[in-house]
Each structure stands twice: as C-alpha cells, then as structure tokens.
C-alpha cells in the first residue's frame, strides 16, 4: 500500500466532514465502550496482562532462539518456512508458490501482514484472482478500498453503504430486490464465496501466534472463514511476522484470552484454531502443502532499540478503538496499514520518519491508549521519542520549532519572562475585558477560528503575589 501519511492533515479534515464516516465512527465509540465494560468485568484481567507482558518480554529477549525452535518444529510437521527481509521478497515468495501450484485463484482470510507485504497488488500483477473471505475484507474488495482498522477492516462503512455496494456489484446475479437486513447480505456473500472456496488452489491467511514448541500456528476469527481458507485448498500459505512467535501453547492461551477480550469483549473468539503442518497420510482434510512466510521488514532493528516494547503488540486494536483522535478521523487518514496509536509507532518504524511526522504528533498524549493496551505498551512515551527524533533531525514543523525555542529561551530568564508575560497579559486582558474573551487572536488562528480565547484577568500571579508580600511586610512594620 502506498504510504500517504504525509497527507494526514488534509485527509483528517476531509474525514471530519464525511457524514457516513462520522456515523460509522460514532458506532465504533459505542462498541469500544461496550468492550470496556466486558474488560472491566473480568476479574483476572490485570493478572493476565502482567503474565502476557512477562511472556512476551522473555520471548523477545530470546527471539532468535524461539524462531529457530519454531522453524525446526514446523519443518518436522511438514511446513515449509520462508524468511522475507522485505515486503518485496515476501511478494515474490507468495507469487512463486502460487505459480508452482498453477493457481488461477486464491482465497484469502484477513491478514494485516499480507497488507504490509503488499500481497494483493502482487497477486493482481501476477494475474491471479483473489477472493477475500472475511466479510469486512469482502466489502472492501467490492469498494476497492484498504482496511481502516486492524481487525474490523470495514468499520468505516455504514450499513447503508454496504447495502448499496452489494446492490451494485451483485447485479449480474439477477436479484431484483434490494437487500436490507445484515443477515440477508451475509447470506448472499456466503453463497457467492462458497463456490470460490472449492475452486481456489491456494488459501492465504495470517496467523495470530506461532508456537515454538510444536511448530503450529494459531488463527482466530469470528466468522470461521479462516478455517475454510486454511483447510479446503491444496496449498496453504500463512503470512506472519517474526514477533508473532511464542514459546508454548500455554503461553498462547494467555495471549488468546487478552486478545479476544480487548478486541471484542469476548472471553474467546468464536473460532480459535491451531494448525500444524500438512495433511497426514490417511487424513481426510487439510492442505497438502503448508508454507509459512515470516516477514522482518525492520523488526530486527526495532528489537535492538527503544521501540522494542512495540513488538509486544498483539493487534487487538484496543488502542485505536479508545483513541479520541482515531474515533473522529477514522483509519484512512493515517495513510498506511496500521492506524491509530499503534500505527503511529509502527508506521514510522516500518516505513520512514520523514513522511510520517504527523502521526505521533496528531495525539494529545491523553494516555488512554496505554491505559487500555493489554500488553502495557507505553504508546505515549514512544510518541514523544518519535517527536524527539523529529526535533533532532529537523523534521519538526518550523512554527513549532520557533515557538518552543522562543518560549524555552524566555522561560529560562525569569526576570525577562515576568516582564514580558505581565505586558502581554495586560494587553490581552484589555482587549478582551468587556466580554472576558477574545474571538480573534492574530498568532493563534488555529485556536480562535472555532473557539474563543478566554481573556487573562490582567496582572500576573507573580505581580500580584509580590504586591501582597510587600503589603504584608508594610503592614507588619
């Protein structure tokens, strides 16, 4: 996917004026509130959180070891493990596997790593048909849009928009009536997809966790499409990234509970499947080939630096669902695959710092994301680290640079500071004295365009305090 985070400001502005998006985001706010009720009602949530963090920190500290163990165990199960340093390498691996399988079509379950790899475009370029089987992704394929959320890819669409999309794209089915009910729409998508499941030579899914002790991987969905995608085609491709490995099944158990709870408020997702390798002799179901493609794409570097905690991320989306900025501007404004708070850290790491300056800045540092993150990732602290990298590399907006520089220079000279602030306070107070506020400020149009600036009371506290002290001393003598 093309990186367009440099357009954050204009995209966000447009999003604020898009009524469909605003309706959809209001629903997401409600959904997030519902999820929080479930989380808060879970007695051992904090315990799980501490456990999961400890497991993941340990795994990351020995990541090479666990990846090697995973690979060895996976090979034993008949899985072929492919390592991809870059998205381009991953694309090549996937396309080659499809070609070897003489695939005309692939079915695909939702995979954000697949988005990161750019698999969809690579398949299109190779002339291979792709059918998305996750309902949200199916809708987006009709709309030709990227996901706006990491586990509810189409949450930016309203029901009405989906009705229209289905009506337009399913015309040739000969259906006359306009479908209204979500259940009817789902049934139609299902019916259409069934056929694709049986035709496709290759099934592509993501993986939520890779298990080092036995070489298996865990896949969770709420629609069951992931299982059909994994089991029906002859060739299975699993797209994952290197930080998804966990030492044992028991460890995955801890993470699975946190993931389901934080993502949707469920104790466990509707479908939680453990896949190990290929079909054994005598078995009826399963793929004949199983390929796992492991993407690095900058993660090894993150492991060595101050962004390592981000590698704990289990992609639950709690941070974005609870982010007041995300819930106004929607995921597309962020301009890449990972939106919201986690994306504001991931995107600069996986792409570049220069074109992503807005992401960690479009944040009030309100701390809600870190509060809800099940993996206790200090997202606001990392936003600040990114801002300090901007500062050091001269990427900070010039107005901010100047403003902060001037302010700091002034604030480190208390006497001058007191003089100038006293003058400014008096002037502003005079200008706003009648109404108690100013509706225009020459240097702060951003503030006053849609809100007033309350006027200062007049004298500064320091002035009045010194006066009070002088009066007190005077009356005491």
């Amino acid at each position: 996917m093309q990186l367009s985070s440099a357009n954050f400001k204009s995209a966000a502005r447009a999003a604020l004026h898009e009524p469909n998006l605003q309706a959809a985001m209001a629903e997401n706010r409600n959904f997030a509130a519902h999820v929080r009720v479930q989380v808060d009602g879970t007695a051992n949530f904090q315990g799980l959180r501490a456990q999961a963090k400890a497991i993941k920190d340990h795994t990351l500290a020995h990541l090479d070891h666990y990846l090697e163990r995973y690979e060895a165990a996976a090979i034993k199960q008949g899985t072929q493990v492919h390592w991809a340093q870059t998205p381009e390498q991953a694309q090549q691996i996937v396309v080659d596997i499809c070609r070897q399988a003489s695939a005309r079509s692939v079915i695909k379950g939702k995979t954000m790593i697949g988005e990161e790899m750019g698999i969809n475009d690579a398949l299109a370029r190779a002339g291979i048909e792709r059918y998305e089987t996750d309902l949200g992704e199916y809708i987006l394929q009709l709309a030709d849009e990227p996901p706006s959320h990491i586990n509810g890819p189409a949450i930016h669409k309203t029901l009405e928009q989906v009705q229209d999309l289905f009506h337009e794209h399913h015309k040739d089915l000969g259906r006359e009536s306009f479908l209204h009910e979500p259940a009817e729409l789902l049934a139609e998508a299902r019916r259409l997809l069934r056929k694709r499941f049986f035709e496709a030579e290759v099934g592509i899914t993501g993986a939520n966790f890779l298990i080092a002790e036995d070489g298996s991987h865990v896949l969770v969905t709420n629609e069951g499409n992931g299982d059909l995608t994994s089991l029906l085609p002859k060739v299975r491709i699993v797209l994952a990234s290197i930080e998804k490995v966990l030492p044992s099944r028991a460890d995955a158990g801890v993470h699975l509970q946190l993931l389901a709870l934080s993502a949707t408020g469920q104790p466990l997702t509707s479908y939680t499947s453990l896949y190990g390798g290929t079909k054994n002799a005598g078995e009826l179901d399963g793929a004949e080939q199983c390929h796992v493609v492991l993407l690095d794409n900058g993660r090894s570097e993150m492991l060595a630096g101050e962004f390592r905690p981000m590698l704990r991320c289990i992609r639950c989306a709690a941070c974005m669902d609870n982010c007041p900025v995300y819930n106004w501007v929607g995921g597309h404004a962020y301009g890449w695959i990972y939106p919201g708070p986690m994306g504001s850290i991931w995107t600069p790491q996986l792409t570049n710092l220069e074109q992503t300056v807005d992401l960690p800045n479009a944040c009030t540092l309100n701390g809600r994301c870190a509060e809800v993150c099940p993996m206790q990732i200090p997202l606001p602290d990392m936003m600040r680290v990114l801002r300090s990298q901007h500062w050091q590399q001269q990427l900070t907006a010039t107005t901010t640079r100047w403003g902060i520089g001037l302010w700091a220079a002034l604030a480190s000279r208390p006497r001058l500071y007191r003089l100038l602030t006293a003058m400014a306070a008096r002037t502003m107070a005079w200008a706003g004295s009648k109404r108690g506020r100013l509706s225009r400020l020459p240097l702060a149009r951003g503030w006053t365009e849609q809100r007033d600036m309350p006027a200062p009371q007049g004298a500064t506290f320091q002035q009045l305090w010194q006066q009070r002290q002088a009066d007190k001393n005077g009356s005491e003598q």
Partner: protein
Amino acid sequence: MATMTRSSDKPLVGLLHTCLVDFYRPSIGFASVQLLEQAGCEVRVPDLQTCCGQPAFNSGNFDQARAMARQVIKAFAGFDYVVGPSGSCMSQVKVHYPQLFADEPDWLAQAQELAGRSFELVSFLSDVLNKTDLQSSYQGTVTYHDSCSGLRELGIKQQPRKQLEQVQGLSLVEMAEAETCCGFGGTFCVKYPEISVRMASQKVSNIQASGADTLVGGDLGCLLNISGRLTREGSPVRVFHVAEVLAGMTQIPAIGEGEMR
C-alpha cells in the same frame, strides 16, 4: 540540599503556580494559597519559576525540557512539599522529570527527590493532609471534567469529587465520557485545530446533556479550551477551576466571562 528559614513548624509548601495560572488566572493561585494555608501549611512562591518545561518535552525538545526541569529543581529545593493546581504540570514534575534524567545519575537523584515531595493540589489536600472539610459554598450544579494527565498519571479521580461534594449548595452530576480528552493537548490544539475543536464540541455536548450549570476541572489548559468552545456556542455554562470553588472564590467572573455577565 538547601535549607530554608522557617517562621513556624508548619509544613513548608512551595507553590508551583504553573505558567497558565500565572498568565491567565492568578485567582487560581490565590485560591491554592488560601486552601493550603487553611490546611495548616506555610506557603511560599519561588520567583525563579516560569514554566515546568512540558511544552518543550512534548514537542520532542528534550534538551530544553531538561534545562527547564533543572531550573524547577533548583527553585524548589528545600521545601517540604511542592504543590501545584494542575495535574498536567505536576505529572511533568513527578513522572516525567525522572524520565528526562534517566542517563544523568546526579540529576536523576534530585529529580526523584523532588518527585517524591511534589503533588497536585487537590490530591495533596485529600491524600497527604487528609483534609475533607474545606468549608466553602457554591450555588449550582457542577460537573467535573477529568483532565488526562492528572487522571491517568497521578490517579486523580475521586479526590476532587469528594471535596466538591462537601461544598455547601453544590450538587455534583456526572457527565458522559468525563474521562475523555477535551482536545486541548498542549500544542495539539493549534497544530490540529479542526480535530481539537471536534473533541471540545463533544465535551460541550456532554456537559450540556448532564444538566450542569457549571463545569469544574483541575487543569486550566483544558478549562480554557472547553470554555472557549462553550462561549463560542453561546452556552451559559460557567467554568471554574476546582481550587476556586473549594476556596469559595467564585464571586469573580468565571473563565471566559467579562465584567458584566
């Protein structure tokens, strides 16, 4: 460590008045002094203080943030306590100064020492001094906005509510999403004004839906933002800092109000 001349055996409190209170609303500073004195403290106001350095810190200019932190550390050496009427500035001192000096052991020790005796005003009155009977009155229905840093970094949630409930004539109602950010966010409000205003407007709708006639909060930055949007929408809801209400200093124009209402 510096020693101070004391005129009594009362706890000696240095008031960190914050740059916003100094500039916009000295009455919050005087309300703070009154509350602290009533609670038996001796209050002084170091004149070397300007700003805690949070704007520099949050803009990624860590060097200047450190310089300003050193200034605060020096200005407030020797006090028993450092207290300020802002969760955000006090969290800068308590939580972020030690972060800033992670690689400078000498300053780290001083920053940690300062952090240990620094408190936000209302939590200081409630949790450290156990003051629960501040004896003031306010006629009105109040809703309280939780400012983010105070809430999430310092755990300020029940303290201001408990204190407000003691105020005669005051009835406290909860608004929806009281814990949701108002969109101020320091420089965020001018860097991303459209998003910031949307967040402020949502806050304003929640305040109005609560039926309150007064909004109270513990951070002037947020209050300036919310008040600015309230008056622009023509709302009659009054805005006061929690210190002003607790000290009974509400006969003056509220935030954003002129001489004549």
